């Protein structure tokens, strides 16, 4: 870390780091390129624990985060130890019926789908009612038989989890870690009907089928989702203040995944017609959302070509950052580091590659360093490689 940053107090460092992100997004040359840590459960192995030891023990998880932040001078961390805590579902006796599962080495997602296509409208009518009366009893065979004591224990674990979130915000604040993005103006994550259908309601397989066989029903659901969920968010954005919210590095965080299984016509009619007005609202207000473009986005690059510089930042996963820069010279790129390099190359090779990324993509802004995949598995990264990259990027000053 540079001396100037070492001498800052945590709040000052947090504000400074936030400014680095905002400069990069706005295509102003930042003092140095910021590093957005797309690092999840890999941190646990690096701290000497296994997944099962950290996932149900808040003290271990807290130690994991502190060890990580002591070792690596990263500017933002996608996960501060508060994802996938299993104490709540275990108190409820979820067993094998949970969304997630874990063992010593892996946190994974069980295949799941809560809703057949002909009940999508019932779901959107009242999501909580559907969850309570339909999804949970179907998901958990003994849902109606849980003793009150189990419910009370579940509540207690839930409350401890909420308190842990507050605690971890304090812990990371002491390291001057910047905050990624606020919740959406209506609270919660910004999501779209087709993404909800893919990730929770129908699942990948049934969404693929429904997009061909039940297009009208799917479209009706996506329209209803737009009315109920997306349009109120747009209204809030337009009513709000102009310009970036300097408490955060980005003004919103979105995840795109289902574009990978939709054809262009389906993408336009089930996704883009709802996404574009939201992005235009952010653009109009001088704000910049981060979009995690899981899988690939290059096939739809033309859709984003007309946005003003400074109004979009793509966090790339499988796309080539140089190809995206050529296709979308208006979009700030987040990414560049691959698990293939971090897990297999030498520290010198990692640093040389990082320098090339910064020199070619970020010397005049428009680039934020990050990992392409969420670092999750033990072999996703070698500690000495991440250490070398962090030391380099946190010291490599850009010419203004």
């Amino acid at each position: 870390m540079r001396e100037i940053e070492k001498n800052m107090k945590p709040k000052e460092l947090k504000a400074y780091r936030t400014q680095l992100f905002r400069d990069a997004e706005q295509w102003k040359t930042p003092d140095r390129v910021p590093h957005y840590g797309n690092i999840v459960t890999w941190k646990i192995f690096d701290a000497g624990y296994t997944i099962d030891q950290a996932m149900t023990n808040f003290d271990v998880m807290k130690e994991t985060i502190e060890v990580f932040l002591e070792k690596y001078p990263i500017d933002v961390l996608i996960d501060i130890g508060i994802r996938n805590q299993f104490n709540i579902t275990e108190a409820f006796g979820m067993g094998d019926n949970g969304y997630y599962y874990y063992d010593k080495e892996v946190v994974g997602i069980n295949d799941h789908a809560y809703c057949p296509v002909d009940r999508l409208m019932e779901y959107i009518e009242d999501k909580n009612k559907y969850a309570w009366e339909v999804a949970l009893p179907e998901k958990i065979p003994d849902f109606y038989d849980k003793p009150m004591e189990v419910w009370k224990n579940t509540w207690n674990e839930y409350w401890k989890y909420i308190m842990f979130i507050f605690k971890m915000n304090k812990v990371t604040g002491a390291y001057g870690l910047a905050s990624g993005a606020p919740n959406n103006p209506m609270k919660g994550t910004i999501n779209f009907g087709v993404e909800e259908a893919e990730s929770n309601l129908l699942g990948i397989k049934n969404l693929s089928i429904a997009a061909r066989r039940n297009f009208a029903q799917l479209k009706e659901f996506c329209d209803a989702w737009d009315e109920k969920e997306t349009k109120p968010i747009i209204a809030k954005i337009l009513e709000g203040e102009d310009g970036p919210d300097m408490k955060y590095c980005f003004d919103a965080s979105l995840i795109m995944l289902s574009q990978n299984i939709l054809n262009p016509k389906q993408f336009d009619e089930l996704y883009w017609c709802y996404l574009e007005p939201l992005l235009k609202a952010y653009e109009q207000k001088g704000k910049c959302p981060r979009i995690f473009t899981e899988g690939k986005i290059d096939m739809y690059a033309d859709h984003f070509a007309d946005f003003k510089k400074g109004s979009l930042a793509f966090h790339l996963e499988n796309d080539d950052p140089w190809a995206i820069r050529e296709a979308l010279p208006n979009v700030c790129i987040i990414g560049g580091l691959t698990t293939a390099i971090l897990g297999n190359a030498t520290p010198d090779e990692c640093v040389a590659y990082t320098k090339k990324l910064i020199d070619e993509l970020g010397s005049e802004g428009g680039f934020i360093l990050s990992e392409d995949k969420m670092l999750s598995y033990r072999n996703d990264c070698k500690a000495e490689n991440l250490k070398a990259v962090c030391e380099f990027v946190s010291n490599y000053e850009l010419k203004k």
Partner: protein
Amino acid sequence: MAEEIKVEEPVVEEVKKVDWPYASYPEGYNKLLNKIMPFWARPAKKMMGALLIRVLVDG
């Protein structure tokens, strides 16, 4: 002609109508929250209860 892909339709059984006193939403659900939430937390019942449902569905 492209071969028709046979795909199993998801089987969704009708939810059993039971005598569980908390089975309905929002009435039964609110009753259950009143049983499990401490008194001081109840002002935040709407938000925290909704989040708890989400944790159970997505967790």
